[in-house]
């Protein structure tokens, strides 16, 4: 039950993009088409889940025993950067089309503050390994939900008669704001 609450809380109530405003760069950058958005979401799920597990392990079994918890940021960044590199290799090998579509945003997952944010949140909330993985997965799922909804709205917006001054990024940011307000509705349920 506790794990379910963590997952739902991470995915919906404290949605990483719409409530915590982390990871906005790919959220705005790769949300033009549903396909690439889903691909980005998948990559982020992979990276965040694995990095949550690794970071949690490293924190509990290396940093805490050695009394080096102040090193968490730099070590987490190392792990995340290596993981992203790894995901990039896998994607390049297994799905060149997705690799091309994600383009520069793929290496940018490294600097996606959502990834580091979750690793640090897990530590802050003193989650154990399983809780960290669930929290990481939930958060990444929340990111994926948000980016796919965004991509769906943007695909439809393409055909709308948007006033000239709102065309392009402005309407996207407005949409993001409205989505954020909508997700605010979840804030009471847990």
């Amino acid at each position, binding site marked *: 039950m506790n794990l379910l609450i963590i997952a739902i809380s991470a995915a919906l109530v404290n949605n990483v993009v719409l409530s915590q405003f982390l990871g906005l760069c790919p959220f705005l950058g790769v949300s033009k088409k549903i396909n690439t958005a889903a691909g980005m979401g998948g990559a982020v799920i992979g990276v965040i889940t694995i990095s949550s597990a690794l970071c949690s392990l490293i924190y509990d079994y*290396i*940093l805490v025993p050695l009394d*080096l918890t102040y*090193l968490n940021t730099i*070590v987490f960044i*190392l792990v995340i950067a*290596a993981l992203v590199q790894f995901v990039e*290799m896998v994607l*390049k090998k297994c799905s*060149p089309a997705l690799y091309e579509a994600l383009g520069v945003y793929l290496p940018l997952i490294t600097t996606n503050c959502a990834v580091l944010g979750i690793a640090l949140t897990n530590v802050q909330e003193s989650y154990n390994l399983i809780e960290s993985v669930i929290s990481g997965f939930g958060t990444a799922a929340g990111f994926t939900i948000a980016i796919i909804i965004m991509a769906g709205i943007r695909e439809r917006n393409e055909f709308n008669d948007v006033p000239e001054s709102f065309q392009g990024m402005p309407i996207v940011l407005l949409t993001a704001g409205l989505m954020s307000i909508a997700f605010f509705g979840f804030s009471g349920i847990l």
Partner: protein
Amino acid sequence: MTGIIIAAAVVSIVGLILGLFLGFMGKKFAVEVDQKEIDVRAELPGNNCGGCGYAGCDALAKAIAAGEAEVGACPVGGEPVAKKIADIMGAEVGNTRRMTAFVKCAGECDKTNETYRYTGVEECTVMPFVPNGGSKSCTYGCMGYGSCVKACPFDAIHVINGVAVVDKKKCKACGKCVAVCPRNLIELIPYDAKEVVKCSSKDKGKDVMAACQVGCVGCMLCTKQCEFDAIKVENNIAHIDYDKCTGCGKCAEKCPKKIIHAH
């Protein structure tokens, strides 16, 4: 002190393990890249200027290796690079003519007037929003705010006495300045072009004379003079067709406003 050493050791060990992991996985997940692509990429200049129309040198190398792009598609490398790439690809080099950008305006500060004093943003691209398209008396000429200078990746274009001038030795004809100029003053012409028309004004003769001392008035004397049908006056402005021009220089001789120059 030991704390620092332990901290450094932990970070370096974590880094080392991750590095080994990545190196190992890199081998395992290596994508076979066409050897030709690597060779071609090595020959390309690597400025990633995008002058070829591809996203960068990597993308062009890929296209050349796949046979989608010409061996001489890189405007920056020009002929020497085209030859090397042709060797790699085993293809013939087409006749690539070296091009250079050229600013079709000679209206320097002392040859034109200011219709009013402009103290706003010094950027060519905002000029269309300024009354009369800028303070310069000629609404076709170079405004000298240097958007092209900023766009040039090769430091080949400079504003001299109020007009942008291309240093043709440095110019690689990537076309960045051509795209950025809001008045469409810059044209790619052959490097060895003998004659150039240094004006873009489409105004009628009288208006041109009022605006600038060195503007094309569209008198057609050059057209009549040319034996090769290479120079035409359209929209009150002379234009040279470099496929036909032999560089005899008769048009330049006759031009009453002296706006046709030897390049």
